[in-house]
Every structure is written in structure tokens, then in C-alpha cells.
């Protein structure tokens, strides 16, 4: 099963009339690139829409394609733990969303912030869902700070989004160091992917595209054309995230 762990939908596009972010188009892209399942999140939460409205739209999109899409909830720790607790109860508890996404850069908090983030991670642990974190910007959204979070919460399932972007080596060092830290490889290139396979191992790498910002085929092709074994490609392309989401039985990796 091919799973794309990072896809966006919007109720309206950044450019009016552009259907790039409509859910129908997202699924067309999935068909074009033979992707079975995508994890989606609405990203308008990051340009002003509140987390509830944003997650409402994700729910609508999932409802339109329940066999193809899984929802992750946008959670904004600066809105306070009460609001986050309510939103996680609504999205994960009531609707069946399978994880949460944090964007520490846009929402402006260090991702290892004890007061803001630690209570949210505790909630994620209690729901047994992964936490997908945008990384690639200092000072708040970095792989090194994700390492501190993984150290403090060894039970949490944490995903370093975009492999740290320009901080890809830091992401590798952290994922290698902490067993509960995984790497989403969206928006990376061949060098970073190859180095991560060597340093961290394919059992901790997760295919993601950041579609429709990026074409889902570009990263998928890098994996498919890599020198990894077919077994390892399958891990990266779907089985690793499936294991975190309990979509497949847990097996030793």
C-alpha cells in the first residue's frame, strides 16, 4: 500500500479559481501516481483560519473520499491546552482523525516548549496518535528541538516533517538517536534521502509529498529509483506510517 503522509486541502485556493487544493484534484493526483491513501490536513490554519474551521474542512474532505483519505488535525498550542484538548477530542475522539499536525514556525513557539507543547504531546500519547511537526525554520521548528521532545516523551510517536528542510543532517542525527522519532521525507532530494537511508535506515523514513505544493510523483520516484531493496521501499512508501497508525499489524523492523 502506498501512503502519502503529508497532503494539503483547502476550502479555497490561495489564488481564487485555482482548483489545485480542491479535494477532487488531490485525489486525481493520487490516482495519477498510484497512491492508495493520503493523510490530509487543511493548511489555511496557517494563514489565519482558526483550528476548528480548518479541521472542519478536513473532515468534509475525508467524508468525500473515506477510503482514500485520513485526516490529521491542525492543533495550535498557543490557543491554550483547553482549546487543544477540546479540538483533539472533537477531531480524534469523535471523528476518527488519526494524528495531529503542529506548525511551530507559523504559530511561533519552540516545539519543545514545556508549557505549550508538552501537554499536547501527553494528549497525543493518550490517543496513541502520531504528531507530525513542520520543521525547517530556526528558531522554533527544528529537528534538534524535536530531539529534545522525543527525549522527554519516549512514548510519543513524533514525525520530523520535511526532514528538517535545510537541517536534514540534524534530522538524521536526531532520528538515529531517538527510537520514537521518524522522518517525513517530503520536499527533500536524492542526496538527503540517500544519506538518511544510510544513517537512519529505511525503517524510520516515511514517504510524503506535501502535495499539491509539490508533485507527489517527485519524491515517490526518488524512492522507487533508489538502490533500496523492494522490501525497504515498501517500508518507506507506506508500511512505516501504516505501523504508526495501526493500519497494519505491528511487526519487528
Amino acid at each position, binding site marked *: 500500500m502506498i501512503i502519502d503522509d503529508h497532503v494539503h486541502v483547502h476550502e479555497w485556493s490561495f489564488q481564487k479559481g485555482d482548483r489545485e487544493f480542491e479535494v477532487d484534484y488531490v485525489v486525481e493526483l493520487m490516482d495519477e501516481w498510484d497512491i492508495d491513501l493520503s493523510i490530509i490536513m487543511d493548511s489555511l490554519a496557517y494563514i489565519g483560519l482558526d483550528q476548528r474551521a480548518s479541521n472542519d474542512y478536513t473532515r468534509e474532505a475525508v467524508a468525500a473520499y473515506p477510503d482514500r483519505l485520513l485526516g490529521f488535525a491542525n492543533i495550535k498550542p498557543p490557543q491554550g491546552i483547553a482549546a487543544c484538548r477540546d479540538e483533539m477530542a472533537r477531531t480524534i475522539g469523535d471523528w476518527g482523525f488519526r494524528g495531529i499536525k503542529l506548525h511551530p514556525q507559523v504559530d511561533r513557539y*519552540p516545539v*519543545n516548549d514545556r508549557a505549550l507543547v508538552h501537554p499536547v504531546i501527553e494528549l497525543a500519547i493518550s490517543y496513541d496518535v502520531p504528531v507530525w511537526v513542520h520543521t525547517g525554520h*530556526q*528558531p*522554533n521548528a*527544528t*529537528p*534538534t*528541538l524535536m*530531539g*529534545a521532545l522525543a*527525549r522527554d516523551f519516549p512514548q510519543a510517536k513524533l514525525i520530523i516533517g520535511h526532514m*528538517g528542510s*535545510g*537541517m*536534514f*543532517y*540534524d*534530522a*538524521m*542525527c536526531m532520528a538515529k*538517536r531517538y527510537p520514537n522519532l521518524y522522518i517525513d521525507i517530503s520536499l527533500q532530494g536524492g542526496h538527503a534521502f540517500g*544519506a538518511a537511508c544510510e*544513517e537512519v535506515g529505511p525503517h524510520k523514513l516515511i514517504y510524503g509529498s506535501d502535495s499539491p505544493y509539490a508533485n507527489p510523483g517527485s519524491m515517490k520516484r526518488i524512492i522507487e529509483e533508489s538502490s533500496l531493496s523492494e522490501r525497504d521501499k515498501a517500508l518507506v512508501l507506506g508500511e512505516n506510517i501504516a505501523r504508526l497508525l495501526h493500519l497494519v499489524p505491528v511487526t519487528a523492523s
Partner: protein
Amino acid sequence: MAAAAPPEHVSRGSDGALRRNSDQAKWTDTSVCFGHPEYPAHAETGPLLRAMDAAGIDQAWVFGYRAVATHDFAAANASVRTLVAQHPDRLVPIGLVNPFHAFPAVENLLDEGFKSIKILTGWGNWLTIGNVRRVVVPITQALQRRSLHVSIALEGNIPVTGGSTFLPLIVREACPDACIVLDHCWLPSAWEDYLALAEDDRNLWFTLHSLPQALLTRVVRELGLARIVLGSWLPETDPDLVYAQLQRAAGIGDGLASVLRDNAARVLQGLPPRHATPTDKDTT
């Protein structure tokens, strides 16, 4: 418009130069550029020593920064060797090498009395994670064998490709007992990462430099003075003002100078910070 008043601990002499008020507060500057290509007026011995005197610097660790413009590391090191021979009581030689052709240059420099090698992470030296293992780790091991420290010059004003912490992490992984100094930590946005790194590696030394005052104060509070040395990268910045900023952050007046001297002396011996973990090789 009237000129801004100098900080309390300095005064302006009749020649207009700033001079420290207290003779007691002599400190060690662990990063001083010699032959800086962008500051030709400071590329001579006279201006360097005058700047040291004006800032209260008793001892400066000097490296041949001209190499970043020429990649002629041998000539840059030779200029440092000559300089230090003239003022061995004031100057400590630090070597620079092309990391991809580091040997036998490293051993030769150490044989000649150079006290460390500074790794420049930019300037055309793309230190991939593999290259760190291939080139920085062996240099660190060579230094460690002689009880010397390795100095890793990080961000400068731009991020290092690949991140802020992987380089010391990889070196530490390979050399658990090495004396590692992170230098050139200039990028304020990288300090969240450095502080997280510092929390995990209690034996890391940090070279501080000018930072936004609030951030510097937080850094000093979280690191503790025992892990800090000061490096101005003279002539890129005025060392006296860097010192004043750190003094304000530390809040201990002229006592800071002796702390910096003591810390620098430990680094020169390849020792960890005093307050580090019980597994330290030195528990004094």
C-alpha cells in the same frame, strides 16, 4: 549629535581610543583573526596588539584567516607562526587546514606548537555527514591524542548546510572524551538548537560572541559561565564591546575576566568544563 558614552568599564583616551579602566580585568580572547582579508588595516601586528591592549585582552588565540580568501592554508599558518614567535607571551597559535587534505598538515602544525585546529564549516568546505566522519573526526582524534581541543566554527551569519547540531553530534559520537569547542555561534536563531544540544552534552564548550542582549543573558544563564569562553573574531567586532555585553549578561563585574582566563586555560589543556558530569576525566 554627541557621541555615545562608552561603557562604564572603559574610557576614551586623548587619542580617542577606548581603554579599559581596570588593570585587573585581563581576559583571554579565544578567537582572533590574523590577516583578515576584509580588514587589511588590521592585518599587521601593531594594530592587533593595540586592539588587544585597548580591550584588556591579555592573551589572544590567533588563526590565519586570510586562508578563507586564498585557500593557501600553509601561508596563513606561516604568518601566524611568525607573529606568535614575536609575542609568545600574548598570542597562541591556532591552525587552519583544508579539511579534505588535513594530514600530515595537522600533525606538522601540532609538532610546531599550534594549540588547536579550527574547523571552518563554510568557505567552500561542504562538510556532509560523511565528510565529518572522514575528515573532522580524524582531526579531532589527532588533537585528543595530544590533550588538545578541536574548535568547530559554526554558523557565522549563515546556516551551515544540513543543520546546526549534526557536526558536533557526529564528532562527539566518535570521540566521547574529546574537548570540543563550538565557535562562531553567531546566528541568534540557531541558539534554541545549541541550547538543546548543550543540555545533552554537558562537556561541550561554547565560544560566545555578540548576540542580542536578552538572548545572550539567557544563554549565559542556561549554559552557566563554566562552559563559556569569549571569542571576538577581532577585527570583525570590537572585543571590548563583546566583553561588556557578556559582563552585563553574567552580572559579575570584573570577576568575569578571571573566569574567562580560567576557562580558556582549561580548554588549552583539553579539559572539560569544571561543572561537567562525574564521568569527566578531570574532577577538579
